[in-house]
């Protein structure tokens, strides 16, 4: 179009007709990506189901080694961060720059708290020799309680599931920092908050996956 650039708001890319089309596209694209994420974790859940069906007694035994208290704390932390990211979107929609910044910061903080707790959980397990795969070398006390020849498989699955989830949390933190920087520069307002919205969608999924991981790994007695 000859007068294309004249009527186009700055944030709208050249190939979109208007802001709304761009927003709808970004949202649909993110939803499609989330479906793909679910299938990705689906493989791990599938492995979990199969090995749990084969070795049910192993799973109940091994789950006792996981710290339910800190797992529960982490669940609360992540649900809280989902709330703050939703509030960040709300702030952007209402042109509240300050609110957007604060909510993003709290979300980043909560995500970091989650990782720190996760780190100490890992640390503790590795200390006891509950390590993945060929590094599996439990202390005698642990070996006495966890009396199962395939005990390493439960923890193989545990480390894979929580590890891949942890990577998603790290990616989420990176995205949130990027959003915070842009928010500081005043890029977002009620007209344009697409990145905040779709990062929020992503963050809800990361949260949701943890909500499934927590009972499946920690709460099976």
């Amino acid at each position, binding site marked *: 179009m000859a*007068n294309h650039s004249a009527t186009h708001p700055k944030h709208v890319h050249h190939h979109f007709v208007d802001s709304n*089309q761009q927003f709808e596209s970004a949202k649909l*694209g993110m939803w*499609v990506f989330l479906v*793909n*994420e679910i*299938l990705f974790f689906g*493989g791990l859940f599938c492995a979990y189901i199969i090995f749990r069906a084969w070795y049910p007694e192993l799973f109940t035994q091994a789950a006792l080694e996981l710290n339910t208290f800190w797992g529960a704390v982490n669940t609360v932390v992540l649900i809280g961060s989902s709330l703050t990211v939703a509030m960040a979107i709300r702030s952007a929609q209402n042109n509240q720059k300050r609110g957007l910044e604060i909510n993003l910061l709290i979300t980043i903080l909560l995500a970091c708290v989650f990782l720190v707790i996760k780190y100490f959980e890992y640390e503790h397990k590795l200390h006891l020799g509950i390590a993945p795969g060929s590094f599996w070398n439990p202390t005698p006390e642990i070996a006495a309680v966890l009396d199962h020849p395939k005990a390493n498989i439960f923890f193989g699955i545990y480390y*894979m599931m929580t590890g891949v989830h942890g990577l998603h949390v790290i990616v989420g933190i990176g995205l949130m920092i990027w959003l915070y920087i842009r928010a500081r520069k005043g890029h977002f307002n009620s007209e344009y908050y697409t990145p905040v919205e779709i990062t929020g969608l992503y963050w809800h999924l990361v949260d949701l996956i943890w909500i499934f991981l927590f009972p499946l790994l920690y709460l099976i007695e």
Partner: protein
Amino acid sequence: MANVSTSANSAASTPMKLKVKQFQPAQTPTNTYLTDEKGVWAWLTTVDHKKIGLMYLGSVAFFFALAGFLAIALRTELWTPAKTFIEADTYNQLFTLHGAMMVFFVLVPSIPAALGNFILPMQLGAKDVAFPRLNLASFYIYVFGAIFTFLSLANNGFDTGWTFYTPYSSDTNSAGIIWVTLGVFILGFSSILTGTNFITTIHKLRAPGISWDRLPLNVWALYATSIIQVLATPVLAITILLLAMENILDIGIFDPALGGDPVLYQHFFWFYSHPAVYIMIVPGFGIISEVITTFSKKTIFGYWAIALSSLAIAFIGFLVWGHHMFTSGQSAVATTIFSFLTFLVGIPTGIKIFNWVATLYRGSISMKTPMLYVFIFIFLFSIGGFTGIMLGALSVDIHLHDTYYVVAHFHYVMMGGTLIALLAGLHYWWPKMTGKMYNEPLAKIAAGFIFIGFNVTFLPQFIMGAQGMPRRYYNYIDQFTPFHQTSTIGSYILALGFLIILYYLAHSLFKGKKAGPNPWNSRGLEWQSTSPPDFHNFSHTPVVIHGPYDYHQPIEEFQLGLAVEHGHGEKYLAADATGSEAAETTSA
């Protein structure tokens, strides 16, 4: 003047009357996407879907040549029953590399990422795909995955076959296997991002007037393909990641020595890799539908049957993976169900074949090169499809499993199907992409070489497979010598055909005649733009008033409408109607 009722694009859902002005694309465009920005750097950083499509096309051609060269080496080695000129270990690495490269670097990205990238937005009347930067990123992810695979070669290589079956792949103690699995993991993301991009583009970026029943069948096929890419590829990603972890950490999920289950690996792998077969072939179906109407000058027969059968294949394709594992110790119930479902997937495929043949009936057929490839496709793909049904039958499969019969079958489907469709599409859209025509008689001769060479190569493999020649073997007993030698000769003929194609396409680039916007007189939207198109694909926002296969309507009615909009909250359209020239927009 054409008064059209259209639901515009998805942004505005209320139907409105559009007044459109018709125009013709210029015969010789002054400013095209090729002249728009020049230099290597401009190409490498472009977000233009057309250039990205061409970069994919170049890469796919490169890997095809490389993997094809390996195939020739393998066939030459098989000239004699014992060693001919390669060592056995090298042979194992070469057939693995041939398979992995052809599947992951050639077949999966070939039609969607190369031709689809170029054509899809044009068929939708869009300026680009929904996420152009993501599109460029997916190309670089593809390159990155390729680099990892080459690094694998520098680290002892891999000789597991392209399927990476455990426990061999987890016990082989080769660093190469870790590199290549990570490479495939990375490549998967390229495929996922392309699929995500296409789904969004098809939903949100259709030009005014393109309702779902005016969507070209190529778009329907790419839509079905994208759905499979998004749903199946992540499962491959996690499988491959687990396999890599099995190698790095011995996590024990697949390794029987540690209590894991190698058959679980096969389930995971084929849950992706069977649908992946449809990622490779369904876009080919789309091309065939486009070409066959254009060169029959006739409306496609059974539009909805073809469109929906693509989706049906995508759906059923997810439920048949177990037919790769009839001999792996599945339960009898599971094998029976998988066998029935495998027969079921033949139905939508058959529907397509019959509809294409019905489209030919009483059409005004012109035997141009793309059409020639369509006929080759129908012939070869039918053989590939029927032999697939035989492999899906339980008792027969026990005999044929892991023999050359399987090798011949999937080459008939993948090469006789996908690659021939790719050639059809390449010859069909070449004038659009480059603005040049190619040497038609030479192209027909090359098609003849490919058809003959292909059959000479792979028909004998059905026979020796049925007689018990196992696949992937380095040596064989003397009785198979004539079959192997015939097959090897065939592969040389095939290679010659591809060399001819390389020659005349290169010639066409530099010395080809100008093509003009619509050399085939097609009704498709992509042909209503200049050849090659300009950066925005169309110089005016197209308003589509007819379906893509309405050959009963005069071509003049397909000259596009011009819609002026933006900035007033309502669509305003140029009222002047009869002028056939491309007028500049007069903004209100």
